[in-house]
């Protein structure tokens, strides 16, 4: 193995500023806290895990209360939940410094460590997601007769209800995981991140289901009306939480949300990922022609892209706020 040396300081100096200038405000601009190494694989995990949990909840609620018109929503939700939870552990293991030691996550259970809870929560939810997908496959006649009879005997509504706890957990705990760190942007917004991840997961899962059902030509006016009502609500909550997060951060800590590439993507998410889908939906409401259908598909795609990018922004803006000593001092002077 070739030896690689740490050389971190060269990237830290802000362009056009001398060491003496930076020394006046902090220790030469050197970060007070270390940022995590998490990159795209964690963003993708946040995205897929969120969809998996939320689509499981939607499938369960559609089964419990949706009536026969929403059978296709239940079916699509169960399959989507299972398909999106499969890559989740692989992405997490890929991100580890020592992937071959992934099973060390299951040595202990620590209630004050969101990552420990998350590892166990992922295991628990995977079992529910897999079982519900299996039941659905049985109902759809994809399995052998013997196993289909066994699966039909299982209480699928009760299983769905029990699995909805871990499903909500998987969609939301990632916000708590970020909040329980010394990263200024995350810990400052500790009450908002979990709800934000939940609302975004719900809007993403709804969009993914609408998209899947549209592609499979199984979307009725009934289905699209009800799912869109849910999506509109989730998007409005997400919008409120994103604006609240920016306001709550204060002028110093929110700098990565306003400036540079993360700031541009943050504004893009607000505009194209939240406001634009809301507008497109309003235009399409009540219409079920070819044009309205196209608007719905476009809105769903925008919501999904926005859902991925909002997690990118939260992660990488967090990195930048960890690198900013003034953001840390803003937090640690005050309390």
């Amino acid at each position, binding site marked *: 193995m070739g030896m690689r040396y740490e050389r971190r300081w060269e990237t830290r100096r802000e362009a056009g500023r001398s060491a003496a200038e930076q020394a006046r405000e*902090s220790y030469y601009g050197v970060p007070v*806290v270390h940022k995590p190494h998490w990159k795209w694989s964690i963003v993708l995990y946040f995205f897929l895990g969120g969809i998996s949990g939320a689509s499981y909840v939607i499938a369960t609620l559609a089964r419990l209360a949706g009536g026969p018109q929403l059978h296709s929503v239940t079916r699509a939700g169960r399959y989507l939940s299972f398909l999106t939870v499969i890559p989740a552990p692989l992405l997490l293991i890929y991100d580890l410094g020592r992937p071959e030691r992934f099973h060390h996550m299951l040595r202990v259970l620590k209630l004050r460590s969101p990552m420990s809870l998350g590892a166990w929560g992922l295991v628990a939810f995977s079992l529910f997601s897999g079982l519900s997908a299996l039941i659905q496959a049985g109902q759809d006649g994809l399995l052998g007769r013997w196993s289909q009879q066994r699966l039909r005997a299982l209480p699928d509504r009760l299983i769905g209800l029990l699995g909805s706890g871990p499903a*909500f957990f998987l969609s939301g705990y990632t916000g*708590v995981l970020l909040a*329980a760190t010394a990263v200024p942007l995350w810990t400052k917004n500790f009450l908002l991140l979990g709800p934000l991840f939940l609302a975004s997961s719900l809007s993403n899962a709804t969009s993914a289901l609408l998209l899947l059902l549209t592609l499979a030509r199984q979307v009725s006016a009934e289905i699209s009306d009800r799912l869109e009502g849910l999506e509109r609500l989730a998007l409005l909550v997400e919008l409120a939480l994103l604006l609240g997060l920016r306001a709550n951060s204060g002028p110093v800590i929110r700098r990565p949300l306003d400036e540079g590439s993360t700031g541009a993507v943050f504004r893009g998410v607000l505009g194209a990922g939240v406001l634009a889908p809301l507008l497109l939906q309003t235009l399409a409401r009540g219409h079920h022609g070819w044009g309205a259908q196209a608007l719905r598909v476009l809105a769903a795609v925008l919501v999904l892209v926005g859902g991925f990018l909002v997690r990118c922004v939260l992660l990488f803006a967090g990195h930048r706020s960890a690198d900013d000593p003034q953001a840390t001092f803003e937090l640690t002077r005050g309390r």
Partner: protein
Amino acid sequence: MVSASVSSGDPSVGTTGARPGALGFLTDTTLCIGCKACEVACKQWNQLPMDDFGFTGYSYDNTGDLGATTWRHVAFIERVSDREGRRPTRLKAFQSNWLMMSDVCKHCVYAGCLEACPTGAIVRTEFDTVVIQQDICNGCGYCVPACPFGVPALSLTDGKAHKCTLCYDRLKDGLEPACAKACPTDSIQFGPVEQLMERAKRRVADLRQQGVTEAYIYGDRAVGGTGGIEGLNAFFILTAPPEVYNLPARPELPQRKVLPAFLSTALAALGLGLAALFSLWRR
């Protein structure tokens, strides 16, 4: 703010929640001459690979920061001018306007890295120090942002998290840590935290008597060991605000946020779940 809390008779000044028999460091920055013997002794004893050669331009500090292969870091602060750009007209006692501090893992009484670790690799030892077990760590990296002082880091070489062990192997053999052994001025002192804290209080009183009115302890319950951390087993005597040394004045144990954050998330789950039920309800 710091001097105010020291002079106001704050009862948390000079106290820590250190467990009985805890061992730690007192790093008295008024005695530091910036020789970096601690950095070298640490690297040698712990067989840490060198850092890349390079000039930072940060005074005599070419180490930069604590990291996976740097467990002692001597900071050099040239107080050429204050925030407003005013230059000092007279030199103060001890280190004049050139501050030096040997930074190290604080071995917190309640440690963020330890509580964050999902594998149980980070443990509290019989000496009340915090150590990362290298045969357990799987390099998840959660301890890295969970430290309010920016101490642990993932190694580029072996992918695992590393930080100061307070020379656990030497303590086992009744030896003092390598950095404290090497320090030529006794700026780094090793011993039971209880005794070190008494010594620090006497030293601060002495310094103030000699005209260094800014001297204070960093790492008690008043400054540095705040917000549920309950004190640092490796603490410091400083003569300028903590931020000057790149230290947070009032850090917080990040895990304090876990319960309230989960409660707000559960509340949101309840609200969104009911909203979803209402949206999907058979009409």
